[in-house]
């Protein structure tokens, strides 16, 4: 049952992606991307990643869609996308995709409890979360305690990206020196 739900959701996600590729309207693509992200969140729930699903639903369907629409409001919302000639890119992506699928045959099956990724260090985290840290949510204890440096780095990246946007777009206050072009 779980596998059927997984198949159906993933096939739907691929359909959204193809729709985004084919769509010429930029506004439509932005809205479809919001739906795509919410759909992604559903898949994360099926794959047991509830914390990730939470974040993806709030970020993908909420904030990043709002930011793309905000950019469209500045650059003009009625833009149509032009595509260049598609034959060579189609060949390139087709070849890379085929190579990746060929490579995936050697990967451990999805859900294999004995896959290398599931055997190294992770059992220690799950056990230690109960004994050393004492909180039930293993994701929180790995995020905040076992990999605290990692998270500090990520928060710094977020802060720096915010500072970068403020440098590029100003602090939202009108500048006296900036004349309207005309």
């Amino acid at each position, binding site marked *: *049952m779980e596998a059927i739900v*997984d198949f159906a959701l*993933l096939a739907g*996600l*691929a359909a959204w*992606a193809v729709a*985004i*590729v084919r769509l010429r309207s930029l506004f439509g693509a*932005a809205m479809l991307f919001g739906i795509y992200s919410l759909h*992604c969140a559903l*898949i*994360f729930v099926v*794959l*047991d*990643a*509830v914390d*990730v699903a939470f*974040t*993806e639903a709030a*970020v*993908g369907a909420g*904030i*990043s869609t709002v930011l*793309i629409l905000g*950019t469209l409001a500045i*650059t003009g919302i009625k*833009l149509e*996308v*032009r*595509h*260049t000639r598609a034959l060579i890119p*189609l060949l390139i*992506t087709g070849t890379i995709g085929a190579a*990746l699928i060929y490579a*995936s045959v050697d*990967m451990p*099956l*999805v*859900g294999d*409890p004995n896959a290398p*990724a*599931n055997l190294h260090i*992770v059992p220690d*985290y799950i056990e230690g979360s109960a004994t050393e840290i004492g909180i*039930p*949510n*293993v*994701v929180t204890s*790995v*995020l905040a305690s076992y*990999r605290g440096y*990692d*998270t500090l780095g990520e928060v710094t*990246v*977020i802060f720096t*990206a*915010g500072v*970068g946007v403020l440098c*590029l*777009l100003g602090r939202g206050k009108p500048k006296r020196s900036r004349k309207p072009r005309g």
Partner: protein
Amino acid sequence: MTTIGLFNYWIVFVLMMSGLYIVIVSTNLIKKIIGLNIFQTSVFILYISIGKVSGGTAPILVDGITLYSNPLPHVLILTAIVVGVATTALGLAIVVRIHSAFNSIDEEEIYTTSD
């Protein structure tokens, strides 16, 4: 439960290549950023699929359950999503500045203007 097999990975590759295709083919900078975001979400699904354990539950410890999915990819992707939106915003900010400098967000128009 029947096995999921490798289906997740194949869909991930389809999504990845759709994102790459958008980045190559589209001349519009915002559409390119949407393509990069699709590529990014495909990597998220790849990681989460690697961490899935059949018959396991979400990694929140409860008495009586011994099998949990792998929490480590969840941690990596959780932070990557939020970092991803911050870097996307940075990309969009550069697009806005390009628009105010060239009055266009279409690559080819920008090339012809800057000649």
